[in-house]
């Protein structure tokens, strides 16, 4: 019964999204206000059906209705309720349904927020979103149907993938990632609408930018959570392995970041319209590529779902959207003509251009490294893998260059600057850069790239901080007192700008923390007998013994270590090996003792009787990465909150204004 209801809802959503898409495109080409209202209703209808279908699935999961096939695959009476609830995204079919739910919510919310605005573009945007909705409904109805009936329902099921139960981060990482991935559909719809209309007006930039920024925030946090999870669970003391699917999440992030920057130039100068649209299209297409990577079984990765039949379907969708996007872009890019022009290469907008270039080069570098094994296999039939050395050699220089731009770009004025202006903008930050470099050198940093990162990082920190509080200082210079200057100038009118620089501040810290933690890490492998101690990185580690613990879903071997410093007990660390019934290999869980300056990391290599072979790792600054990425997300949120009035108070000399083009 439940399964049949679910299947009915999904079939209805195929119908509603397809019909809605047709109506929306027709309304767009006929410029029919009535048609737009109908396409809005269909958008809400699609969201409602997705919500209902997910509700039915959750109901089936919670009531352990094993006559629903998906529940019989991932459900279990043995697991706690929260595990049952999150089982929705623990396996392929459910995760696609979850995708559909998020897509529905995004579509309905964006349609609602813009219900009276941008009527010129909205029908085409809704049409594009509902076309994507139709594809995902089709996936759920056909190749990845979670609502199939089981003729003879079992009494109990195996429960979800044990990794999902192993760590809390594993529960929030997937939804965050989906919110980022799926959200890229919205700016894509706007971009397609602009292309179909053949124009991209100033007033349309606001929803375009907001719709890009929101998934960007989620994706930023999701990538960090994934790295953090790997660090806390996988036991090698790292957070990024250039795994194909990690790369898959980074690729759309890179293009979306580039698009957020080029959109600023577009807003200020009226140029780079076609370019920004291309980057937005690329971001969406890369999310579909990422979905293909995780779900086709083509890539070898910790993330791969089991081999599934939806790979070819997603590939057909990807190929179709790719071709349509390219053709549409080629047809219309010339009509998105520039309204202004770039005056000087050595200016803020010039640096934006270089920044975009680097982001795109970085995207291609990572994409080629990720796909190279596939290319070799397709062409020569040989297996090979591209690992760290390639990515490190390619990405480190480009990343360092981006950090350099992050400092120099915001320091330069818009438009043409005189030599004197440039000198006064560029020279003072060198002081902080040099100080940070000297401190790093004094603390033992010798790696050239890390030293460069410290120099550029200090430079960028100075510029970022100065720019961040510029509105406040300007207001106070003009006689405002601190309170109004802060509230009105800084937090109200200057909020977007302020948020942007908070993101930059977070990024500077991330750059420095990544460089320091990866080049300054030290590690030691030791074998300890019970009661034996070793001293490493200032701490004494004593092996206190082993404990076996049987839990319903796993068998754990826990080693106890006492951590002391100068004779004082600091903490007890308990790395463990977990053997899950459904896994071929045991999963180690390291123990991490975090302080402000560094992490102390113990990972079990092997346990035999009274002997423990362990890997001790000393990782300076690694915890800063997680915090700084959260700061980036916070900055994004600050910038996202809409301003009440469309005014640009800061650096007003070069604001390009265009006539408003709302038809309504």
């Amino acid at each position: 019964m439940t399964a049949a209801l679910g299947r009915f809802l999904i079939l209805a959503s195929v119908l509603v999204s397809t019909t809605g898409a047709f109506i929306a495109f027709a309304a767009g080409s006929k410029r029919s206000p009535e048609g737009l209202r109908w396409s809005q209703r269909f958008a809400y209808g699609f969201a409602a059906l997705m919500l209902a279908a997910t509700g039915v699935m959750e109901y089936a999961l919670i009531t352990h209705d094993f006559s629903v096939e998906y529940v019989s695959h991932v459900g279990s009476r043995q697991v706690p309720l929260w595990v049952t609830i999150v089982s929705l995204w623990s396996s392929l079919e459910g995760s696609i349904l979850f995708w559909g739910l998020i897509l529905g919510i995004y579509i309905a919310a964006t349609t609602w927020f813009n219900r009276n605005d941008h009527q010129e573009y909205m029908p085409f945007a809704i049409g594009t979103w509902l076309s994507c909705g139709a594809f995902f409904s089709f996936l759920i109805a056909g190749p990845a149907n979670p609502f199939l009936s089981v003729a003879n329902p079992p009494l109990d099921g195996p429960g979800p993938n044990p990794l999902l139960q192993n760590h809390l981060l594993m529960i929030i990482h997937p939804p965050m990632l989906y919110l980022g991935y799926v959200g890229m559909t919205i700016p894509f719809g706007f971009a397609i609408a602009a292309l179909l209309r053949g124009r991209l007006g100033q007033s349309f930039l606001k929803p375009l930018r907001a719709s890009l920024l929101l998934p960007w925030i989620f994706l930023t946090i999701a990538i960090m959570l994934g790295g953090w999870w790997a660090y806390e669970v996988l036991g090698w003391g790292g957070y990024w392995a250039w795994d194909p699917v990690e790369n898959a999440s980074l690729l759309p992030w890179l293009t979306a970041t580039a698009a957020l920057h080029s959109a600023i130039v577009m807003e200020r100068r009226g140029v780079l319209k076609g370019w920004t649209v291309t980057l937005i299209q690329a971001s969406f297409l890369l999310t579909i590529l990422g979905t293909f990577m995780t779900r086709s079984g083509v890539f070898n990765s910790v993330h791969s779902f089991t081999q599934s039949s939806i790979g070819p379907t997603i590939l057909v969708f990807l190929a179709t959207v790719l071709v349509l996007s390219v053709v549409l872009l080629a047809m219309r890019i010339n009509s998105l003509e520039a309204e202004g022009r770039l005056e000087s290469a050595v200016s803020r907008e010039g640096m934006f251009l270089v920044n975009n270039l680097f982001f795109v080069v970085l995207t291609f570098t990572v994409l080629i490294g990720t796909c190279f094994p596939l290319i070799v296999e397709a062409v020569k039939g040989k297996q090979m893998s591209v690992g760290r050395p390639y990515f490190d050699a390619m990405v480190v220089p480009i990343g360092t260059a981006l950090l350099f731009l992050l400092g120099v770009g915001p320091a330069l004025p818009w438009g043409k600057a005189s030599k004197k202006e440039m000198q006064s903008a560029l020279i003072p930050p060198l002081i902080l850069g040099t100080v940070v470099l000297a401190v790093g050198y004094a603390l033992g940093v010798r790696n050239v790239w890390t030293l460069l990162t410290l120099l550029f990082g200090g430079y960028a920190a100075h510029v970022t901080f100065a720019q961040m509080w510029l509105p406040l200082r300007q207001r106070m210079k003009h006689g405002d007192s601190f309170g109004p200057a802060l509230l009105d100038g800084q937090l109200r009118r200057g909020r977007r700008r302020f948020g942007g620089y908070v993101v930059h501040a977070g990024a500077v810290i991330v750059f420095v923390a990544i460089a320091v933690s990866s080049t300054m890490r030290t590690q030691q492998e030791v074998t300890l007998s019970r009661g034996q101690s070793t001293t490493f990185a200032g701490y004494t580690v004593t092996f206190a013994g082993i404990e076996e613990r049987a839990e319903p879903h796993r068998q754990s071997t826990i080693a106890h270590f006492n951590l002391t410093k100068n004779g004082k007990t600091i903490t007890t660390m308990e790395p463990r090996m977990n053997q899950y019934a459904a896994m071929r290999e045991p999963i180690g869980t390291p123990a991490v003792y975090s302080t402000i300056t560094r992490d102390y990391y113990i990972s079990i290599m092997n346990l035999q009787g009274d002997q423990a072979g362990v890997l001790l790792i000393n990782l300076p600054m690694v915890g800063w990465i997680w915090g700084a990425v959260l700061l980036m997300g916070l900055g994004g949120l600050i910038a996202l909150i809409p301003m009440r009035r469309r005014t640009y108070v800061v650096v007003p000399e070069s604001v390009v204004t265009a006539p408003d083009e709302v038809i309504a």
Partner: protein
Amino acid sequence: MNRTVLIIGLLIVVAIVFVLFACLGKDPQHIESPLIGHPAPPFALKAVGTGETIDLQSLRGKPVVVNFWATWCVPCYEEHPTLVANARNLPDVQFVGVVFNDTEDKINRFLDERGKAYPTLLDANGKTAIAYGVGGVPETFFINPAGNIVAKFEGPLSTEQLQADLAKAMR
């Protein structure tokens, strides 16, 4: 129509789609064993229960199926009935189980509960598994009467898979 954008764009698209399409359906986890076509690494291990030592060399002359497994592996539970049934049906084929990273009493309990039809050897220090390049359990090697490895299968065996690989060893 901007032809440059169209041509460059479509070239990138065709390249990406071609590569992804060519790789559909391949299992990236699957790595060809370099041992195929080469003599099977020799071993002489003690059988669980009887304690008698079985030497691979002494099994020359008939096809041998070497199945690496452990009691802590769930797919091994799944394939065990298949192995037992086929071992009983095929008296001309020698089946051998090799267990590593496990204890004798657990293995005995497993076999008592689930049936045994062929000797199970204990690879106490895991050296045999390493010699065969076993990446996880279960993994099964098919050896022809001349003592060469002809096939390797990763994961739980089905009767069809087993017979297909065994056919190579019979040739």
